[in-house]
């Protein structure tokens, strides 16, 4: 029987090659037009721990994988236990495994023990290619045409490994004809144009380049390091400046230095590094120097769980640091959003001359998705800093009070515009001020200039039937699960979902959404319900507002949110 979606899990110890297996299968399917999402699960160890992937292939669209597997390939049952909740089985799941489980586990009737290692050795002379044997078998079960696979392998250099080990793949395909595996298979993709595979971190880096970012300063940290690596590639060979700084304080400081001389710059980090950037963020806000920080959130506090997702840096992004330091906080909920909002972040940072925090998270950042590449081809407007015009020569006031509170900013090197700037309270000419009146006026200026952002309706996404009175507000990657559950339950006519991408300052459209609701559910992945608190301190929420907030460490499952949403509708 063919279905629109198949969810395939694979788990093993380090060296079993499950990530390679998942990656190849995702690539082959994407080259035939299939959409997919593939989270990886791994322990904190770089080597030796267990690792797993969950590849969810879909003929139309997929945001999050199904909870339950259609197929599991297991090389190591002990490691399976580590990821049991991510790789759930039912009676219908097809389980393919190498060794009998030594653990207390009843396998479904459709389970098959296969001597992958022996098959691999017979095919290539090495037991290590068992993942490729499994790949051949899986491709058959899923129903990916053999000739198409051969063509993909021939055309794409990324398949080189597979090309060299083609006998292993063939051995897997051969296995399929020997076994009586139930027929699964995917419907034809909506269109057969090849889908691109990338994750949020790559999308973020590519967008930064697109938006004219010419310098990157960073420090390695999980799960943001891929942004830094990608930027190193992009900015190499004199296309820009890349520097791995000695720490996150330095990274943030260098961003300010670059902005002062008129060069677009950014940094990326995760929770602990973001903490270190806090003081610099205050300077950016006070001295009105553009700065973009991408925070790929992980579980906190402190070191937390570095490799797992959470949405718990919101408070820090919005309120972090001493004094009243306005900044802009945005959060994408999809890989496409990582791209679009990274461009937006650089735009607003350099237009409004302030600090911008882009809150991505581990799920968005590191989950490989196969999607349409249309968003990469689109034209995005690029904003530049407003510079002083010729009339300001000789009487330049760096912090001149203007109608929109944005003061034209001279870049170091501009003739006739030398001036001082500082994190001290300052006069319009940038010299230190120590009086209440000036302090008050400058606060007003810095907050006022951001107000036009509240009118950016395009930065608040609303889904479902308009004039519904039952609504869900969620943000970041949690939005994906909510949207999928609403679709699965066929509730798009009854529930409106609001996913604000601009979180601070609070957009007017979000306020209108809240006002139109009589029943509201807020869903987010942090222990204290940080976004709920932000909303509650700014808006009147309906009395019946419910909040679902829990710590990170495991992605939201669809099952987990289903009952909550059904309850909302009743």
């Amino acid at each position, binding site marked *: 029987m063919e279905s629109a979606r198949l969810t395939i899990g694979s788990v093993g110890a380090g060296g079993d090659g499950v990530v390679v297996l998942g990656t190849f299968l995702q690539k082959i399917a994407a080259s035939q037009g299939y959409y997919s999402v593939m989270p990886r699960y791994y322990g904190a160890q770089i080597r030796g721990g267990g690792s797993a992937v969950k590849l969810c292939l879909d003929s139309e669209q997929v945001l999050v994988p199904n909870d339950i597997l259609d197929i599991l390939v297991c090389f190591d049952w002990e490691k399976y236990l580590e990821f049991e909740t991510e790789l759930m089985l039912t009676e219908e799941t097809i389980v393919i495994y190498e060794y009998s489980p030594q653990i207390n586990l009843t396998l479904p009737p459709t389970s098959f023990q296969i001597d992958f290692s022996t098959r691999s050795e017979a095919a290539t002379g090495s037991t290590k290619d068992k993942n490729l044997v499994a790949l051949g078998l899986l491709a058959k079960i899923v129903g990916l045409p053999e000739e198409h696979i051969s063509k993909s392998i021939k055309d794409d250099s990324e398949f080189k490994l597979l090309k060299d080990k083609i006998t292993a793949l063939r051995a897997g395909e051969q296995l399929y004809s020997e076994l009586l595996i139930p027929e699964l298979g995917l419907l034809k993709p909506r269109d057969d144009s090849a889908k691109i595979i990338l994750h949020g971190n790559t999308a973020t880096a590519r967008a930064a380049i697109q938006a004219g970012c010419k310098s990157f300063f960073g420090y390695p940290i999980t799960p943001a390091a891929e942004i830094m690596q990608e930027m190193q590639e992009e900015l190499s060979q004199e296309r820009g*400046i890349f*520097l791995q700084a000695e720490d996150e304080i*330095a990274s943030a400081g260098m961003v300010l230095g670059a902005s002062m001389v008129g060069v677009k710059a950014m940094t990326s980090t995760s929770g602990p590094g973001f903490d270190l950037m806090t003081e*610099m963020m205050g300077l950016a806000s006070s001295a009105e120097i553009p700065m973009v920080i991408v925070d790929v959130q992980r579980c906190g506090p402190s070191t937390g769980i570095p490799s797992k997702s959470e949405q718990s840096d919101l408070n820090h992004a919005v309120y972090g640091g001493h004094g009243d330091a306005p900044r802009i906080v945005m959060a994408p909920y999809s890989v496409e959003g990582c791209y679009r909002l990274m461009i937006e972040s650089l735009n607003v940072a350099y237009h409004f001359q302030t600090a911008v925090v882009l809150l991505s998270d581990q799920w968005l950042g590191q989950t490989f998705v196969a999607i349409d590449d249309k968003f990469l081809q689109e034209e995005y407007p690029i904003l530049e800093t407003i510079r002083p015009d010729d009339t300001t020569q000789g009487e330049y006031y760096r912090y001149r009070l203007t109608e929109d509170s944005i003061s034209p900013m001279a870049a170091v090197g501009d003739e006739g515009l030398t001036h001082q700037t500082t994190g001290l309270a300052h006069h319009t000419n940038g010299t230190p001020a120590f009086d209440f009146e000036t302090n008050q006026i400058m606060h007003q200026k810095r907050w006022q200039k951001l107000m036009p952002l509240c009118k950016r309706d395009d930065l608040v996404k609303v889904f479902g039937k308009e004039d519904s009175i039952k609504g869900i507000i969620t943000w970041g990657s949690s939005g994906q699960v909510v949207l999928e559950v609403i679709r699965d339950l066929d509730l798009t006519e009854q529930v409106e979902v609001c996913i604000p991408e601009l979180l601070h300052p609070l957009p007017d459209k979000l306020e209108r959404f809240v006002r139109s609701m009589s029943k509201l559910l807020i869903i987010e992945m942090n222990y204290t319900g940080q976004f709920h608190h932000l909303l509650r301190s700014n808006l009147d929420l309906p009395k019946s507002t419910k909040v679902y907030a829990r710590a990170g460490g495991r992605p939201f499952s669809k099952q987990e949110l289903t009952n909550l949403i059904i309850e909302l509708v009743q």
Partner: protein
Amino acid sequence: MLPDLEIPNHRALIVSGIGCSSRIPGYIDTYGINSLHGRAIVIAQGAKLTRPELTVIAIGGDGDLFSIGAGHLPHAVRRNTDITCIMVNNFVYALTKGQVSPTTPHLRRGEGDFLSLKFYPPVDPILDMVSYSFSTQASFIAQGIATDVPHLEWLIRQGISHVGFSYISVLTPCVTFNPPELISTIQTNACYLQEGEPVKLPASSTEEPWIHDPRNMDMALRLAQVPLLEEPLVGIFFRGVVK
């Protein structure tokens, strides 16, 4: 200073940290920022790396560059970024009224004059800034005295002209929190290093004086180990060859 080097004002950026010395950019008509405590050197690097044609100077005090911001210095040095770092060393935290700094002379409690007037002496050894810069191999290392303006001016000009990271330590009085003997001792005992001339060594030294050659890293290292209060050496300690 800058006109002599044919650098127009608008082509220069002075980045300071926080402290008494960090008000300096406010008195000079170039681009300037009075930034965060300890961080002048990183902002300066961000500016210089992205616009190498500009002249970038980082200024801070002993607390600024050697305590809170000390972690940045070796990295600026190893990158050999072409900025000039001026450390104004007044041996004390003066803006906060006289606490000990990493360079406050180290003596036993209650002994000697060269202490912060108000607080107990530090119990940890001082960080000697010149030796430290050697250990990280800055490519230009010099020391001047704030009260000898023509010589200091010359040093700073040499530092700015040097291609690579230049570090200039400036021995400075704090008229409020140093005992006056500190700077007067430094002034009296100051010994000027001159290329091609014999080096004057302190009385306690058993070594034979040698001819000063700022290209010689080994000898420069030995100069850096001369105790500051016994014989303050001023001048260019080391100037790496520009490759």
